[in-house]
């Protein structure tokens, strides 16, 4: 596949599942440049003028197509802000696979700020998958993703956002505005270790009647890492909102969860749940009586939790 070394290929597979040239539309961004771009009949990818990033136009009635837009950084010290805008037509059902992997073996921080904005047409459905990871012995691997969604009447989006390992600092912002009968599901999986810092800020505005949001965040904080999570659901119509933030705290880590609800309509039904705790002792005991060592038991529990 393209001109990538082994580390880059491994990162590419880890964050996007891509091992060769995928079918359909794609844009591969490696070290600040597009090294492969392809539009399909229904998905048109064009570079932005004047700033970094791409415009992705998806025609009405496009169904079952996948667009891959992974990013790899292996040049130490590279700092970039990339703007990708998605214009999704009416009656579509599409999957966007993003994700960013950073390899840093040098002395300078590598930073990728990915700003993704989705304009989703009427009655369309979008699946968005974004995995982040960092490797290498060098300086900071920093990822600051922003995802903005504008959901038209009757449309829906499902977001799966994972930070697997090795990202030193992440400030994640996710915003959504929903029209009538629009739905969004936001699933977040976050693993931090060492002295990492991760922030996740979610703001969802339920503007249309019968709109819904479901936020499910699961996080594990190990070692000295720090996590700040906030979710803010604003219901100004007859709507339903649910936010669930679950975190496992270990070692000397710190987890701060601030779920907030703002009901501006008597028919807004908003719920939040937040729980932070260490791995339950009875869970460890159960797995150890099946023959697992304490370490093995911990990693089974964490892997299951973040699955």
């Amino acid at each position: 596949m393209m001109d990538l070394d082994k580390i880059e290929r491994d990162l590419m597979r880890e964050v996007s599942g891509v091992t060769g040239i995928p079918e359909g539309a794609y844009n591969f961004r490696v070290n600040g440049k597009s090294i492969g771009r392809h539009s399909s009949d229904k998905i048109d990818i064009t570079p932005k003028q004047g700033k970094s990033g791409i415009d992705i136009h998806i025609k009405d009635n496009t169904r079952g197509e996948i667009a891959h837009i992974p990013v790899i950084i292996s040049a130490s010290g590279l700092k970039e802000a990339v703007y990708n805008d998605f214009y999704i037509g009416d009656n579509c059902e599409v999957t966007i696979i993003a994700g960013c992997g950073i390899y840093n073996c040098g002395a300078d921080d590598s930073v990728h700020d990915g700003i993704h904005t989705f304009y989703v047409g009427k009655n369309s459905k979008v699946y968005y998958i974004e995995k982040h990871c960092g490797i290498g012995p060098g300086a900071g691997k920093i990822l600051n993703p922003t995802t903005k969604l504008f959901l038209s009447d009757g449309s829906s989006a499902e977001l799966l956002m994972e930070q697997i390992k090795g990202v030193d600092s992440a400030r994640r912002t996710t915003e959504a505005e929903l029209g009538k009968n629009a739905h969004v599901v936001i699933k977040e999986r976050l693993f931090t270790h060492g002295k990492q810092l991760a922030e996740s800020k979610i703001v969802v505005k339920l503007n249309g009647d019968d709109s819904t949001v479901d936020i499910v965040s699961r996080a594990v904080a190990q070692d000295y890492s720090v996590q700040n999570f906030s979710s803010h659901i604003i219901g100004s119509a007859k709507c339903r909102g649910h936010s669930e933030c679950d975190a496992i705290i270990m070692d000397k880590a710190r987890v701060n969860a601030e779920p907030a609800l703002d009901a501006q309509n008597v028919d807004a039904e908003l719920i939040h749940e937040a729980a932070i705790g260490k791995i339950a002792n009875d869970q460890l005991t159960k797995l150890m009586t099946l023959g697992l060592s304490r370490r093995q038991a911990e990693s089974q529990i964490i892997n299951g939790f973040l699955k």
Partner: protein
Amino acid sequence: MLKLEGVTFEAKKGRKTQKILDDVTFSVKPGEIVVITGPNGSGKSTLAKIIAGVETVSNGKIIFDGEDITDKNCTERARMGVAYSLQVPVHFKGLTVRDLLQIAVTGGEAFLDENPPKVDSFLEKVGLEPEQYLEREINSSLSGGELKRIEIASVIARNAMLTIFDEPEAGIDIWSFNNLIKVFKDMHKNSSERAILIISHQERIMKLADRIIVLKDGKVALDGESEKVLAAMGDVK
């Protein structure tokens, strides 16, 4: 196969130390089903935890398969062939029934994704349809009875030399109770080398036993053939 010699377990209650188990001595032979019974608070569950290695003795010795395991932790004992079914099943967020049973079969040894251990039969043994349950998360979406049956399946899957059940009948319905009796009978029938230790109040389970041990105030009050102990139990109460 299993020998307890003068096992004592003390727990701190406020400033005082309380003897939960007091000089408990008994043994279990290969092929035996032994039921441990006794009033609430007599130390039965603590005894199960002590044998499984979840709690450590304050005094005394535990010998398993000829080896002193008093200082071994529960992982080591599990690997030597001790299986332990918890009285209250544990909830796991994210872990599925399939995951748990695969861990039980392999004891944490890695397996290839192309060749995972088969676990359907263990669910069938406890009367649960594998297709309906294998991908379910082990959480409160399952009923207490379902969780208990999955707990029992996870212990059957270990196929261990010594299997300890702590109140296996707790929280399960009549139908699965009959099933449970069948589970014990099958385990017993299939092996003359393996032993089962059951903590129970149920007369039907006691009747299955070769021997019954009655605990009272942390001490062995009676230990003998099941029929004799059942006949004598009135006196202990």
